């Protein structure tokens, strides 16, 4: 009986020791920015105020579970590109109430074009790409993607 109790206690202590430190996993490598994006946008959404149109493209197309690179093209009501804004992007799973582990880096390419890398959509289901614009225009927009 004492041997069994000792074995049980040792197992519990060992498990706790391993788990107390835990392991947050290793962040995946950021994918390279592709030379080009598809001509056809995945989706085009209007901003909350209606002042902006945001066309979202991705590589791979359609986006996959895992790492993706996004491209945003901002235009105004007349179809002209919008410059002079900074963009923040938050991938979000609305039904589960969580985001992702990788912050999205946004690079201004000029001409209203922005690269969002990485878009780490690690789980199957419905994702929102929540966008916040500041500068020449203060606005927000949300695109919805379905990841198989």
């Amino acid at each position, binding site marked *: 009986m004492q041997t069994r109790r000792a074995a*049980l206690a040792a*197992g*519990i202590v060992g*498990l*706790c020791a*391993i*788990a*107390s*430190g*835990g*392991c*947050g*996993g*290793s*962040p*995946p*490598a950021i994918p390279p920015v592709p030379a080009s994006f598809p001509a056809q946008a995945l989706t085009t959404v209007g901003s909350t105020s209606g002042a902006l149109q945001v066309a979202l493209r991705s590589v*791979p197309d359609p986006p*996959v*579970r*895992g*790492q993706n690179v996004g491209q945003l093209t901002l235009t105004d009501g007349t179809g002209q590109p919008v410059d002079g804004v900074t963009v923040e992007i*938050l991938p979000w*799973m*609305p*039904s*589960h*109430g*969580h*985001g*992702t*582990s990788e912050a999205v880096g946004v690079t201004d390419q000029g001409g209203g074009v922005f690269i969002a890398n990485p878009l*780490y959509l*690690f*789980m*199957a*289901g*419905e994702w929102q790409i929540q966008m916040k614009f500041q500068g020449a225009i203060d606005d927000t927009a949300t695109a919805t993607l*379905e990841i*198989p």
Partner: protein
Amino acid sequence: MTRLPRRSRSPERLLAAAVVAAAVALAPSAAHAQACCVGTGLVTPARLRMFEDYAVGMQTSVRNVMGSFASSGNYVASPSGDNEVDFEQDLLAATRFGRHVQIALKVPFVETSRNDTGASAFGGGLGDVAANLRYDITFSGDDPWIPGVAILTGVSVPTGRTVEESRDPAGATGLGSYEPNLGVALEQVRGRMFLSLTGFVSKQTARTVGGQEVSFGPRITGILAGGYAFANEVTVGAFVTAMRRSDEKLVTSGAAVAVPLGDYWRAQGTLSGDLPFSGWGLNRPTGAGITASLLRVWL
């Protein structure tokens, strides 16, 4: 402490005890899913039978993610090359306060192995600790017509790591906020067969992500279980659970066995799978898994 000597156990009480063991073996299956999105168990498998005073145990589970339900309700199998396996090990403890009240504690350790788009990741750690209280108003087996009725309540505590706090989502082990729950359990025995119905409402408290407060709707869970208790107290059963929260839905079914190992030990095992039929789920990954637990009890 109310104790019921083993020699006084009537056949009815043996059956009722078997029902309890079976319900305990069935309940954990509803708890195991991805740590980022589903609260720690509503019921711990360390439920005490009426003549037991304390219990400690360990439980381990493995679940393979096979696909998902889209927001339209369509089932989609995981793409070729993508795979995810969720592991969980739990430390369990329970004690009784009188005949009617028992509390249980579950300390989970969660790991996830994931491969997607050519990348692989593994991570884990301490999950969300859960405490549960059970108040038995009536006991199954005491009366042929009045079922066992119990009030259940509990809370999971955000001791785990959220997705946003992890270097990789595989390292996520918790919800990021508290999730209290309240439920009712009904159990009845007919001969050697039993049936139990348990319903829970739980609600994850709001949490802040990136300066934005996120709130959650109530989660409703129902568990219907039935089975057969053999004379040697080995119990087999089957169950179906259904969960709904806002635009999430999932139905899971499975089978379980509970085996007494002498007077002071019992082993329990569960095979379970989410039902992959379009329209039966919304916005949830689906999978199948196996759970095994070993409990030491004190009479």
